[in-house]
């Protein structure tokens, strides 16, 4: 509790004296202005100047006391309450700001994480697509190669079989020719062949 003397600009003792003076002055006025009081009462104004001045003196004396025991604690309580409220509001505001900041950070982190995840997903998708494309290209190339090789093998086999067939035909033809020639060959024909050879033979130089 604060001292009322310190709070007011005027020392309490001075106020006490002034109040006592006003009370004494009221008593004196009340005793010496009876006629005026009756006159005012008769005129419909129930005003006793002495009492009024005395009451002013009482107020001058009591106001610091009331102030000291009631208004000051009340003001302090109100101030404390106000400060507490302000503090609470301030803390709440800080907390709200911190929460807001945290929320913002979280949202930023979340956004960054989402962006990173999205980026990674996109990269994975691209990689998967590239891999798919590569695998498809390789598979296609391999299939083309297999088809080409199979066609070549078929063609080669066909050529080989045809050649074998033709060679076989040639062999059979030659065998038949050999047999026919052998059967039709006699000494005269042989002699003619030898004579023809002797006539035409040339030694390569």
């Amino acid at each position, binding site marked *: 509790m604060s001292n009322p003397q310190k709070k007011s600009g005027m020392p309490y003792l001075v106020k006490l004296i002034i109040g006592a003076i006003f009370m004494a002055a009221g008593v004196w006025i009340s005793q010496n202005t009876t006629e005026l009081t009756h006159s005012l009462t008769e005129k419909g104004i129930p005003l006793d100047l002495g009492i009024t001045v005395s009451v002013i003196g009482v107020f001058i004396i009591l106001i610091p006391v009331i102030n000291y025991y009631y208004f000051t604690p009340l003001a302090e309580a109100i101030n404390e309450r106000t400060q507490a409220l302000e503090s609470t509001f301030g803390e709440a505001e800080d907390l709200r700001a911190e929460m807001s900041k945290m929320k913002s950070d979280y949202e930023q982190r979340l956004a960054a994480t989402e962006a990173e995840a999205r980026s990674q997903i996109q990269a994975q998708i691209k990689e998967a697509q590239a891999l798919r494309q590569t695998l498809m290209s390789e598979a296609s190339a391999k299939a083309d190669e297999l088809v080409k090789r199979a066609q070549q093998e078929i063609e080669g086999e066909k050529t080989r079989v045809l050649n074998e067939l033709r*060679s076989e035909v*040639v*062999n059979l033809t030659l065998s038949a020719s050999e047999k026919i020639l052998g059967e039709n060959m006699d000494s005269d024909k042989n002699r003619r062949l030898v004579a023809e050879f002797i006539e035409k033979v040339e030694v390569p130089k």
Partner: protein
Amino acid sequence: MAESKVARRYATALFNTAQKNDVVKSVEDDLSAIAGLLANDHKFRSFMLSPEVGREEKVKIAEKLFSDRVTALTMQALRLLLVKRRENEIEALRDEFVSLRRDHGSVAYVVVTSAEAMEQDQRTALISKLQSEFGKSVEADFRIDGRLIGGVRVQVGNHVLDGSVSGSLRRLGEALRHNILFQN
């Protein structure tokens, strides 16, 4: 191969000596006779080529058999071969000697193969034609091979002059096969 080189070396020495003494033909005949005996007489061949028979015994038998039938030079060469354990080279020595004689005498050796035995007039005509073509004398070895069907084939060293029916058929087959391959 090593054996041929040995035979070549012996043949060269024997040929040079025979040439100096002017007995090339006699030595060739002697070598042909001995080689012919080796080829035709199985017992003589087994005896001469057996590693179990001693060289002195072989020399003794050879002298007994050939000393009064062959020239001294041939006998000396045969003795040397037997002493040096080169009896396996006798036939190769004969071949090399003949080859040297042909080389020095500018003689072409031909093998004439025909489907049937050639008559003498055709043999003479063929040799005459070959001598004319080669520009030197020709020695011919006439053989018969029925697989030729007809005609004649002459082999001179590594060259073959083929006038046989089988040769014509073979060439025809080769041409046909070449055409088959060429078409592809």
